[in-house]
């Protein structure tokens, strides 16, 4: 019986702590940031590689899209600091509240690779990454899709 009381007390403490965290909005912001990073990782991994230029050009922006291209010749690879910059951008999500978040690619052949052409099969990396995100959202219990 003593053990049961202890368990109930612990359960109450955890529920209250979760409620405070949820009320302060930390939970939603954490989830948005996690989804952004998950989406970035997922879409990057689904992107096919020839020179690496297309895979290199995925980025995250908040509030508005960017027109910046990250590789100039298609021969450059990610430097040590650049993945950290992407993470820093994604980590602004909590401060940005509920702004629109973009995961985008400015390589000029990104759309034909994603959507296909009469002579080339589509890769659908954006749609596949969205499928992964929907599965993640379902598992966090944020919403039912």
């Amino acid at each position, binding site marked *: 019986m003593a053990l049961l009381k202890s368990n109930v007390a612990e359960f109450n403490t955890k529920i209250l702590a979760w409620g405070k965290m949820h009320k302060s909005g930390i939970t939603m912001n954490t989830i948005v940031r996690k989804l952004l990073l998950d989406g970035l990782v997922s879409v990057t991994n*689904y992107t096919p590689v020839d020179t690496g230029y297309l895979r290199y050009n995925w980025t995250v922006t908040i509030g508005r899209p960017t027109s910046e291209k990250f590789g100039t010749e298609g021969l450059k690879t990610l430097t040590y600091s650049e993945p950290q910059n992407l993470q820093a951008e994604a980590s602004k999500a909590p401060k940005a509240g509920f702004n629109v978040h973009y995961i985008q690619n400015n390589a000029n052949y990104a759309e034909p690779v994603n*959507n296909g052409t*009469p002579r080339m*099969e589509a890769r*659908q990396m954006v*749609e*596949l990454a969205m*499928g992964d995100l929907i*599965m993640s959202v379902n*598992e966090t219990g944020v919403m039912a899709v």
Partner: protein
Amino acid sequence: MTFVTVHNAIRNRFSANVVASSSAIGTDDVVYDNIGFEAHDAGDSALWVRFQILTGESEVRELGSSVARTTGIALASVFSLAGRGDNLSLGLVDEIVSAFKSTTHTYGGATIVFRTPSVQHIGRDGSWWQTNVSIPFYTDDA
């Protein structure tokens, strides 16, 4: 469930519920993964479809269980001759959407749950006008 049964079940849905019943295309007008390139390189049809199955991530669904969920996209790229309008291709697009929209399909031991398809005009490339029907799906490994 194996990936062979999953792919066969999705192709069966497309073959039985679109190709077999459509007056717009026949079996020779469909290009599946790794088969049927030659016929359409020559441009011998006014309308043809490339049907692809792209599987995404697989994840374990429950703690202490081996049930895994695999998500993916079934993509029907509809190509019609450029300069002929979009009625022909959109008619076929509607047939594809109605065959897959929010449907559960069981075939050969695999059960596939299809979500709502999205339709997107990709536009003209050479002598073809392209419209994509992207159909998200998932299947659970029982």
